[in-house]
């Protein structure tokens, strides 16, 4: 009898201990976030079910929003255009914490240990760093170039060793900020790197940072394994002196394509990708594409690169074979294809088709459409596997 009472007592205690807002017990490795840019909301999606499982509203202006994930892949940090930084619980589909940290932001990154979240700002410029747990501010680092003027910051990524790296758009510099211990940053500046760096990214091994220049015909390369750091110009005159086409949408370096010995990056103002040798960082070929590339996203494993294009040719995707550097498949998902995201091991790819209000899901091998999900003006798609990658 006593034993029975004990069992009942334990059962009651367990029931009482369960929180009122308990969420379904499940993993988060197949989850992701789709930005709904016009309505300031995000969809929580399940890549295995090929379905939306929740929506989180009231996240502000999400034009040009991006997302990073906590190391445990339970929380997403959403960076909004209006300076909003929202920490979302993917299991509860709810906002855990939200702050408006600046006037006009462009993106963010999370440190390799998952403790620091950095946000890149257009207004007031510079980078602000926050405690990933509480979103309280750890550091505010204005981007004052050698000319003393405040600069917009672009191409912010995490690099190994509690560090971040970004470019100063107006000043033409690249900065590395590190937090070796505590909240005081160590700042390394590379100045005079070139005119108007518009985006940058680091290779998946965390070694090479590349920044594209808008004001000049070239790309800047920094090898993070070489001390002291040095900014080196590569691909000088890749436009061969020809007049650039009008650029109706800036290309992105995010999700870029490192495949085997090659990297494929968008050529600005041209209907081309440039193939770069990953050892020498020199051009080894071009890929003729349908329009001006915006994203060139590699399929995990490196077999293909999927490319979308700037307005007004943004209804089309090219799939490029990374061995032959030829387009092997060209198709039209619909009006305004804004982003593509592969499932973690690359068997499927999700495509946001903004003006059709749909996310489409394709088989990455056969290119057949597998499913569609309704979404309100979808743009960026971000899966939790990004938590495990450098420079995401």
């Amino acid at each position: 009898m006593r034993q029975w009472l004990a069992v009942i007592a334990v059962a009651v205690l367990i029931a009482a201990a369960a929180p009122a807002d308990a969420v379904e017990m499940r993993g988060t490795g197949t989850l992701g976030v789709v930005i709904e840019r016009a309505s300031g909301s995000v969809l929580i999606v399940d890549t295995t079910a090929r379905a939306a499982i929740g929506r989180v509203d009231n996240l502000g202006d999400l034009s040009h929003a991006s997302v990073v994930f906590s190391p445990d892949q339970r929380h997403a940090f959403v960076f909004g255009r209006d300076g909003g930084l929202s920490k979302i619980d993917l299991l509860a589909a709810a906002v855990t914490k939200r702050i408006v940290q600046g006037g006009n932001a462009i993106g963010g990154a999370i440190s390799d240990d998952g403790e620091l979240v950095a946000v890149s700002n257009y207004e007031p410029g510079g980078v602000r760093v926050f405690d990933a747990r509480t979103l309280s501010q750890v550091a505010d680092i204005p981007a004052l170039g050698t000319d003393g003027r405040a600069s917009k910051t672009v191409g912010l990524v995490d690099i190994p060793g509690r560090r971040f790296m970004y470019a100063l758009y107006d000043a033409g510099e690249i900065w590395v900020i590190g937090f070796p211990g505590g909240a005081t940053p160590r700042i390394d500046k590379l100045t005079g790197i070139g005119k108007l760096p518009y985006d940058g990214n680091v290779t998946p091994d965390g070694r090479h940072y590349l920044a594209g220049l808008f004001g000049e015909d070239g790309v800047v390369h920094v090898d993070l394994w070489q001390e002291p750091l040095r900014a080196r110009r590569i691909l000088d005159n890749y436009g061969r002196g020809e007049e650039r086409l009008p650029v109706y949408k800036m290309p992105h370096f995010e999700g870029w394509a490192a495949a085997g010995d090659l990297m494929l990056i968008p050529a600005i103002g041209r209907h081309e990708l440039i193939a770069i040798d990953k050892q020498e960082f020199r051009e080894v070929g071009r890929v003729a594409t349908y329009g001006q590339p915006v994203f060139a996203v590699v399929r995990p494993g490196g077999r293909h690169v999927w490319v979308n294009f700037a307005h007004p040719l943004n209804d089309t995707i090219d799939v490029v074979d990374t061995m032959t550097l030829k387009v092997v498949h060209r198709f039209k998902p619909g009006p305004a294809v804004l982003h593509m995201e592969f499932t973690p091991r690359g068997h499927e790819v999700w495509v946001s088709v903004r003006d059709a209000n749909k996310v489409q899901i394709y088989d990455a091998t056969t290119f057949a459409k597998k499913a569609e999900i309704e979404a309100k003006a979808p743009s960026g798609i971000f899966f939790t596997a990004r938590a495990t990658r450098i420079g995401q």
Partner: protein
Amino acid sequence: MCVTSSTWRWWPSAILMFGLAVAAAAASERSPDTEKLTHLVRQDCGGCHGLTLKGGLGKPLTAEHLGQWNRDQLTSIILNGVPGTPMPGWRALMSEDEARWIADLLKRGTLR
């Protein structure tokens, strides 16, 4: 007034229909496809200038910020771009009338 309550019930939708008809007529009088252009301003200009036009990599396009340029200057910037900056000329994608319509829209600040 000898109007029955059931007749009254129809009034709101009748007024709405009338309003829509007037709006449609006004839209068709202007040659630019205003719905298409509004969408373009919000989504494609918004890529650089922000969905609410408060600025991004590009300058703010709020009426306040644009006060220093007149309609013709703005129309010219839209069509020809600004050399040395990422602002492209949109001449290949729109007519002068359409660019002028966008300049007016931005000067009025009535997109949102």
